[in-house]
């Protein structure tokens, strides 16, 4: 068995066995992690692969949540309808934000995506027809898929708790999102993203349609963010208008960075480590001496996220997944930097690198 197959087999076994072995609290933490993983996979396509800054991912999650509120809980339509409705709404709005990215980059783009969050907060607070206004929106979105009802799961005469059922649903969708992302990245579109990420001007010089690449990256990111939001509402059954804040967007970015941006496993690893962290901190807080230090739970979370972001960006920009890759390489090639690996050295031996040329 190759290593890939081994990993896949372990994950498959964990997928089936975990809900049977882990208690309700642990499962809900993992389900939240899975919901964040779906969104983070999307964000990483825009950030890690296409190199576009987005501080607006929390907005798209909100879009998806309210799609689920209106299509699922209000109109009573089925799971496939409100999930795909969320994806379409998120994708369309993502494409709109992507249009802004055509003329803007770096700090300006970051500011516009911050603006998207504020416009979103205004809409969620002031248009009750969409969001239930400041009071929020609650209700049960039907979660029936074929013979399976994930809100009241019964399979072969055996009934399962909601936590178990939603774990399976959410993590199946994580797998689907990861599969989609892996294939997109290897497609023509994905290679265009990578080209834009590496050098926008060079990409357009060799004929990559930069505009199309940017818009499609934001559209896919928005769609997956919205799917995450829809799942969040389906699971929690209540959403308030102020949940879709800038801090949520920052949490998504932290997940991508800590996990390792630009690689498939990154957002998932990051989501498992950080997506469940707020719940864990909340649960463990009575046992931690933070009360004595005068720190609140929310505050501790911010401190934790802040420190992790700074440390990872500054000292481990390749994230946990990248660190794992480095470990593997080291086992194969010893403790030498990448440039010393025999293949790399052979490849660069007689050609001056682009950097060298630029120096000249």
């Amino acid at each position: 068995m190759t290593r890939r197959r081994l990993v896949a087999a372990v994950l498959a076994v964990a997928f089936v066995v975990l809900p049977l072995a882990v208690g309700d609290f642990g499962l809900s933490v993992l389900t939240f992690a899975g919901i964040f993983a779906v969104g983070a996979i999307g964000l990483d396509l825009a950030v890690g692969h296409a190199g576009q800054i987005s501080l607006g991912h929390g907005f798209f999650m909100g879009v998806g949540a309210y799609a689920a509120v209106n299509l699922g809980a209000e109109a009573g339509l089925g799971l496939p309808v409100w999930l795909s409705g969320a994806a379409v709404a998120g994708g369309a709005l993502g494409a709109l934000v992507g249009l802004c990215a055509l003329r803007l980059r770096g700090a300006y783009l970051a500011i516009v995506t911050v603006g998207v969050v504020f416009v979103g907060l205004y809409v969620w607070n002031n248009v009750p027809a969409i969001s239930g206004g400041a009071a929020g929106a609650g209700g049960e979105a039907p979660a029936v898929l074929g013979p399976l009802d994930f809100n009241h799961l019964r399979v072969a005469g055996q009934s399962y708790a909601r936590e178990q059922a939603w774990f399976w649903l959410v993590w199946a969708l994580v797998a689907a999102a990861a599969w989609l992302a892996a294939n997109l990245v290897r497609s023509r579109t994905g290679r265009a993203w990578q080209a834009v990420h590496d050098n926008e001007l060079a990409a357009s010089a060799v004929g990559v349609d930069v505009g199309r690449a940017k818009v499609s990256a934001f559209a896919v990111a928005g769609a997956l963010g919205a799917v995450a939001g829809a799942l969040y509402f389906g699971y929690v059954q209540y959403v308030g208008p102020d949940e879709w804040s800038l801090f949520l967007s920052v949490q998504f970015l932290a997940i991508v960075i800590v996990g390792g941006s630009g690689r498939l496993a990154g957002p998932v690893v990051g989501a498992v480590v950080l997506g469940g962290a707020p719940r864990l901190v909340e649960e463990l807080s009575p046992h931690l001496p933070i009360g004595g230090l005068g720190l609140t739970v929310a505050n501790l979370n911010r401190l934790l996220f802040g420190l992790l972001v700074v440390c990872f960006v500054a000292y481990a920009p390749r994230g946990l997944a990248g660190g794992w890759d480095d470990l593997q390489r080291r086992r194969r090639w010893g403790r030498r930097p990448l440039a010393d690996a025999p293949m790399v050295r052979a490849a660069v031996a007689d050609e001056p690198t682009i950097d060298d040329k630029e120096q000249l």
Partner: protein
Amino acid sequence: MTRLAQLLVAGVAVGSLYGLIALGFVVVYRASHVFNFAHGSFLLLGAYLTYGFHQQLGLPFFPALGLAAVAAAAAGVAVERLALRRMVGQPPFAVIMITIGVALVMDALMVWAWGAERLTVGDPWGLTTYRLGGAGGVRVAAIDIARLLAAGLVLAAYWLFCRYSSLGVAMRATAADQEAAVASGIDVHRVFAVCWALAAAIATVAGVLLAGGARGVDPSLSAVALAAFPALVLGGVNSPVGAIVGGLALGVVEVLAAGYGPGWLPGALGANVHTVVPYLVLLGVLLVRPSGMFGDRERARL
């Protein structure tokens, strides 16, 4: 008419604050191309430090403000040294994320130190207001006059510093061309440190003027810096004059939206409309002129 005049006065006052905040962003961005999302935390730090020196240690207000500015400047240098020096030459995304991380850490530590309740800074302007043009005339708060004066004075001081001090000239040289600046013997790292110190000191002034009057200082103060983004972009991220002009324009637009929005818009749409109007203006401006009113156009080269 009085209502319009009253709103314009309020708009100019809010606008000078936005201008001051935006100026702090510009000072750092111009020299080091770091877009500092932690600037809001420096506003908060400056206000808390002034509170600490004035209310907790009992120093008179203006010396307390001065000490707070110096202490905040030291914190700015520390942040530059610890978190950002490693990031020179890294992609903008990484640098922006570092500043966001720094903001989260700073905010959390300040809540830890000063708590989450609203504290009074104890500024000398307080709630004093003057009425212009007799009864029924326009009311002007003392602190609003201080805000406008401070924006003008800080901008003038910054301009004089850039124009006549050798450090200021070094800052301009670094802004114009970093490599050429290094080649002509300018210590670019020192320039960056000075920029962070200046930005933190300006943030202290802005933070105290923001917290002064009726508002007081609490952790939500740092979010005001986000509201100043549109001002920054309107003016152009590398133009100090643009920052102040953009700030004033934004302040007037925002206050007018807050004043007339609820009456003109149907239903609940009017509430808080002033929080989005600046961003809508910003989107419009960016799509027409991506580098703002006064910003330099960036040229890309392969």
